[in-house]
């Protein structure tokens, strides 16, 4: 097991390096630089722009910039944002709590919908409940989040005027009022993301459970006279969870990465909106940091999923 872990971690190093090289090159080759707006402003002499570019090392060859970045990263220096001159780690930390709360909550909502609904629908395939769940799931994941987001805003904010649609990080209320306001402003983004994710997962859980429920060991368990709930939980769900775990684990880095579209619609200051604004202003250090952390998390959660397999199914061994 330890050997397996070490081997996996060693394999991760070249893949991370590869990812960083690709990211960096793509960003360097993309048109534009962070001082685009200066170029179109007649009042700013071109020398100022040249000075700024030089001070940020933008005129060095790509490979040199890459190695500068890499060595700084290895020393734990993430660099600073070209645009705001704040350290990138600080920028990310500023955005992290909101992202974790909103996106994390939406993933929990998604799981809370997908697991019970998917399992229940699979234990009674083609029943009325299954049909309705299926239909809703189809609708859920065929509607893109930007559409449901706007729909929610139009209905709950504009028509009913119940919920605010601009997410604020500086709620002035205190005590339970604060919690109430927080709930009111979070509920729409969380639901939009949660329902979308939940719908997709429901379909997945259902089919995974259906696959298992027909197997011999389940029939045996039934023949033994075990109660249905125990069969479902211990013999069916546990086995069906293996593919589900893979899917959920691969989705987990999103909790960090944020949801670009939904964050933009509801003005949630999460990491997704940080990333998109950094991309729009060609703020390379921020883009690199966010995408790189994201890549690390993807690799980490992949590993975690592999380890979870072993716990769920002892037949899987690590060599």
């Amino acid at each position, binding site marked *: 097991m330890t050997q397996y872990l070490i081997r996996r971690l060693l394999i991760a190093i070249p893949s991370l390096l590869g990812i960083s090289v690709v990211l960096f090159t793509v960003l360097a080759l993309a*048109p534009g630089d962070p001082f685009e707006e200066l*170029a179109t402003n007649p009042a700013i002499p071109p020398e100022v722009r040249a000075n700024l570019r030089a001070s940020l090392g933008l005129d060095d060859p790509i490979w040199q910039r890459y190695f500068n970045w890499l060595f700084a990263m290895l020393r734990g220096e993430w660099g600073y944002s070209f645009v705001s001159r704040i350290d990138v780690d600080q920028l990310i930390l500023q955005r992290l709590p909101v992202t974790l709360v909103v996106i994390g909550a939406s993933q929990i909502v998604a799981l809370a919908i997908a697991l019970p609904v998917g399992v229940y629908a699979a234990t009674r395939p083609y029943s009325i409940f299954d049909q309705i769940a299926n239909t809703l799931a189809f609708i859920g994941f065929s509607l893109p989040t930007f559409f449901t987001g706007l729909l929610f805003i139009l209905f709950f904010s504009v028509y009913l005027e119940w919920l605010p649609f601009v997410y604020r*990080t500086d709620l002035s209320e205190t005590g339970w009022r604060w919690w109430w306001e927080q709930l009111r402003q979070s509920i729409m983004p969380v639901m939009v993301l949660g329902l979308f994710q939940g719908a997709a997962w429901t379909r997945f859980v259902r089919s995974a459970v259906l696959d298992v429920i027909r197997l011999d060991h389940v029939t045996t368990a039934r023949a033994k006279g075990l109660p249905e709930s125990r069969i479902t939980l211990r013999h069916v769900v546990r086995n069906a969870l293996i593919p589900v775990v893979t899917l959920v684990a691969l989705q987990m880095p999103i909790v960090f990465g944020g949801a670009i579209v939904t964050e933009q619609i509801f*003005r949630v200051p999460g990491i997704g909106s940080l990333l998109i604004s950094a991309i729009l202003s060609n703020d390379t250090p921020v883009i690199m940091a966010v995408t790189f952390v994201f890549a690390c998390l993807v690799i980490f959660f992949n590993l975690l999923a592999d380890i979870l397999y072993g716990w769920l199914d002892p037949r899987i061994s690590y060599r």
Partner: protein
Amino acid sequence: MTEDDLRQMIGRVKRGHLSRRGFVRRLAAFGFTAPMATQLLAIAGAAPAAAQGTSSYRPTRRGGGGQLKILYWQAATLLNPQFAVGTTNQDASRTFYEPLAGWAADGTLHPILAAEIPSVENGSLAEDGRSVTWKLKRGVKWHDGQDFSADDVVFTWEYNRNPAVAAVSSGSYRDINVVKVDDHTVRVEFEKPTPFWADAFVASRGTIIPRHLFRDYAGANSRDAPTNLRPVGTGPYRFVSFAPGDLLRGELNPNYHMDNRPYFDSFEIKGGGDAVSAARAVLQTGDFDYAWNLQVEDEILKRLEAANRGRVNIVEGGNIEFIQLNVTNPHEEVDGERSSIKTTHPAFSDPAVRQAMALLVDKNSIQQFIYGRGGPATANFLNNPPRFRSPNMRSEFSIQKANELLDGAGWMRGRDGIRAKNNVRLRFVFQTSVNAPRQRTQAIIKQAAQRAGIDLELKSVTSSVFFSSDVANPDTYTKFYADMQMYTTTMTQADPQLFMNQYVSWEVANRQNSWQGRNIVRWRNDEYDAAYREAEAELDPVKRAALFIRMNDLICGSNHVIPLISRPLVSASLNNLRPVLSAWDNTTWLLGDWFRET
């Protein structure tokens, strides 16, 4: 109407022989608009020069207005006005920092940290145009309690002109000399006579920064100053907190130097999202007081306004959406560059073709069906302030006239219906940036052109590429590797000098200057150059205005530039909010004068 006539009439008004109203009426007969006429009087000294009635501030005590909530669909990322790239950052830093004077909506100066606006009459503006003396307001304090003085103003100049600092406003400070006369007086000295003296220390590029906090960061380490993110200014509101890219908060400054101001106890500027939902948050749900820069289809704004909670503010400025007809040949490469001034355009070198193109642009439909209130059609390149607006230009849409013109010039229709002459076919590449209204405009023009035997190939380039200064990319607007192109050029000051250098021959964009030159259409005209040189040194405001009008007429008359619509600033505010806006300055230029009607 000549300059002499004008001057005589102004003289009669001054002597009291002609009423000001009579003057305005007489000028109107010559096609001058009323605001233009009054402004002519103002600049000629026959009326008070400083802005009148920029603000009708009514609250009688400081504070008590609750919170002011402003929504920007772009978010501020830093708070040092000298590094503020883009309006969002400028506006955000402007809430704390102030210049000596700002530009009011009518293009006149409004004193802020200055005790008065310099003028020849009060002796602070040198007759020879070589210096201007600013008297500073007394008793102004920085937010940290230190006194504001002439030292801060001199320091701001030193800070900006230092190339190591790389301040974005450095262009306004490089060629001037600033002298401290006493603690509350500074003199700005120019190398040569400078009619436009209100550049340094004025408006968005003129905000004064505190010497005691930036002194140690006035070099290559300028970007590490802690004050860059925790501003200490003289403005009506003090800094509370800032999350880059998200939220800026400020609170009332109890020691503000203007009486009874500000009205609000605190403000917040929330950033992010998109323009349509920002309009919605003000006009439809009323969650916010003010939404900035709503480049949204007018139809949508009208629908949102129907909720009757807020209204749309339209402030006229100098920004203009226009078409350029390339002077050079974009299809021929000379010395490694296309559109080189060594070439001439095969078709657009014929004035008849250019005139026909201008006749084929249906500006009224473009205004009516695409831009609405956000884009009134115009025949001039230089539209505002009104004193610089030419009364001589007319635009017309007539496919028939275009056809006659082309027939007359010998451009005959070929078998495919496209006109040609001497193997030159009227087939043009028309490029612009990707933006729905622009693509619709392109389509309108293409349709009309088709009926006159001109084939337009429409090309749209992503904004980030089109407006980039990437030397390696062939699709940027400054390279202009197309026959025609369309975009908006911005006028950031109430003075047209900088704006009109877009057509002087020494500004031609080419390989040598990495396409940084401002003359993108590559038009060269000796008369224009001479007029521009003259305007640079002309101290008589009336003569100078006449020169700029002449320049406008020359470039528009050449038809190498076809003005389409002017782009006023569009914003939304709640019905009871009284914002003070100006297209010549930042949105927040007079935030201290904003109040809520009760």
